[in-house]
């Protein structure tokens, strides 16, 4: 589904990703862990097409299509979704209106019929039920004045609605207390399916207690230096990133 090979990317003159390889198959949940500054968020942003990053070599294909030449909206239309670490506030833009416009923009690009207001509201209600969310977020402006927990819940809600094939969750756990974390993780779990892959980017093992990954990768200095099953995350938690980096250097 997603195939990243030898990806190198700069921010300004500084090389952040230094030959990153990653294969994600359908329905798989991959966790990417790593210390601060290892390139986790850069990787998430490069995949979703944010400006300000220069890819110098390597490739990233999604279902056989070259992702790196596409505009961010084209990637979203293909089925890519980025849950932001810091969701952006859009004051004055109603959340429901925003979601409807986004969904219809994606449907239109796929040659599907746009949803009218009635079918859209029905869809929203279904999704709220699946995620056990109430509808108070819908009437407000997108993320404006939301608490940290509300913003992250809103990200998951958007994901539920847009039904991506590949969701990238960028430090979704940051700034959440344990209750909020559980709500968000429950939402993510409810959205797991054999057709939907996920990349969960996180600094702490904590989130992985709730979202059980199929694979765990350790990112350091712009490369994946170790991959394993979910037990790798536990080992990391115990020994810290220093351990694995030191081992990397010794080898």
């Amino acid at each position, binding site marked *: 589904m997603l195939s990243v090979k030898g990806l190198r990317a700069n921010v300004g003159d500084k090389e952040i990703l230094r030959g990153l390889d990653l294969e994600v198959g359908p329905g798989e949940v991959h966790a990417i862990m790593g210390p601060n500054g290892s390139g986790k968020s850069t990787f998430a942003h490069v995949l979703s097409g944010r400006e300000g990053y220069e890819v110098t070599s390597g490739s990233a294909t999604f279902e056989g299509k070259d992702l790196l030449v596409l505009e961010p*909206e084209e990637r979203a239309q293909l089925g890519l979704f980025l849950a*932001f670490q810091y969701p*952006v506030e859009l004051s*004055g833009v109603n959340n429901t209106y925003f979601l409807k416009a986004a969904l219809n923009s994606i449907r239109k690009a796929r040659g599907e019929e746009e949803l009218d207001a009635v079918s859209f509201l029905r869809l929203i209600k279904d999704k709220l039920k699946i995620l056990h969310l109430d509808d108070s977020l819908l009437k407000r402006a997108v993320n404006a004045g939301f608490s940290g927990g509300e913003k992250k819940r809103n990200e998951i809600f958007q994901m539920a609605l847009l039904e991506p094939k590949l969701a990238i969750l960028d430090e979704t756990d940051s700034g959440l207390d344990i209750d909020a974390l559980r709500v968000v993780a429950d939402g993510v779990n409810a959205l797991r399916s054999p057709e939907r892959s996920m990349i969960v980017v996180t600094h702490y093992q904590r989130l992985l207690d709730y979202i059980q990954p199929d694979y765990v990768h350790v990112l350091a200095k712009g490369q994946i230096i170790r991959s394993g099953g979910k037990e790798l995350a536990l080992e990391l938690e115990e020994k810290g990133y220093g351990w694995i980096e030191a081992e990397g250097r010794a080898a």
Partner: protein
Amino acid sequence: MTSTQAVDDIVKSEYEHGFTTEIESDTLPPGLDEDVVRAISKRKGEPEFMTELRLKAYRHWLTMTEPEWPAVDYPKIDFQAISYFSAPKRPEDAPKSLDEIDPALLETYNKLGIPIEEQKALAGIAVDAVFDSVSVATTFRETLAEAGVIFCSISEAVHDCPELIRQYMGSVVPHTDNYYAALNAAVFSDGTFVYVPKGVRCPMELSTYFRINARNTGQFERTLIVAEEGSYVSYLEGCTAPQRDENQLHAAVVELIALEGAEIKYSTVQNWYPGDEQGKGGIYNFVTKRGDCRGARSKISWTQVETGSAITWKYPSCLLRGEDSVGEFYSVAVTKGRQQADTGTKMIHIGKGTRSTIVSKGISAGQGRQTYRGLVRIGQRAEGARNHTQCDSLLIGDRCTANTFPYIEVKHPSAQMEHEATTSKISDDELFYCRSRGLTEEDAVSMIVNGFCKEVFNELPMEFAVEAQKLLSISLEGAVG
């Protein structure tokens, strides 16, 4: 003749001028002197008093100097090069079909969803039967007649209810007010007159759209709205479709009079031709708009969406004379390309307990230049007056500018004043967030801008609000990047 009778007579008279002004000959030669003023009055068949008013205004205009504004640039206007009376274009001079019209204009019409027949009319093509608003207008008039509301052109009103014109015209914006108001008073071409009798709630939104001959009101338009005690009227001016016009200078005057307990809601969508990318050929829109809250508890509310014209200069104002009267100003102004706008409002608090609200949203893109200029004055007798002002500017790109000049004069210690101002840019973060959800960059911009303007759009009548949103999106297409 009592005023009710006057109203009845007018509405029943089946518009003897046929709803369009009759003009014998075409165009007066360029230039302005007393003879030209007299000729205009004569051709319009005006009564003596009107001719005298015009001449008085003209003589005063001669003593005035043309104003200059620091934040607006344009070549000096040669007032002797303008023709002050022009008949509507003759059919043989008009474009014959849509093929002769600027394709960019047609594209905009299509985006706005304007029917083809109406497109022709807007583009100045001679059409025999002007779409179906003839019948709409007729039904419209009947309903208004039942309510006793007068809604006609100023020319008709001068003939048919001269006593109302005499009493009210120039009573809010006297010809001595400013250079362009004086010029307008001398040479005004046509415009709209609305009279709502005591206690009547006008049964529908009044719109120039339903006045067919409003399309050729010319460059010196004059509007007068009088709301008698306890009445209510909502008036919509303009059109979201960009209108072609041969006249570069537009100097309109709008006067509103609200008597005790009356309310006037005046909404404008202005989308005159802004000129080409260099700003050439665009309209200069120098307008004087003022409302007079003459009676206690009266209310005047201005709402404007200004997206067109090369230069816009207007400050719809309220004179809050009646006790506890209320003035409101809600504005969205967009400047892009080389457009310049110097706009704002004046709230003059004279009576006790008067209140005013100002919400101004300025959007500047391209090399647009925009200035908010507002005055809030609390007079010596305006005990307990209150004002709340909010001025927000949104910049798109890095070559546009926005200025805010709020003037505040307070002469009563009990006044409460609040002023908030913000300037922001559409950030890359906001755009990327929207795009990562599948929205195109243009959709994202229009969504953010519409969110920014929401408070103002909420004040517009429903259908107008929808059109205004669409208009804004179209105006800002290609503004980013």
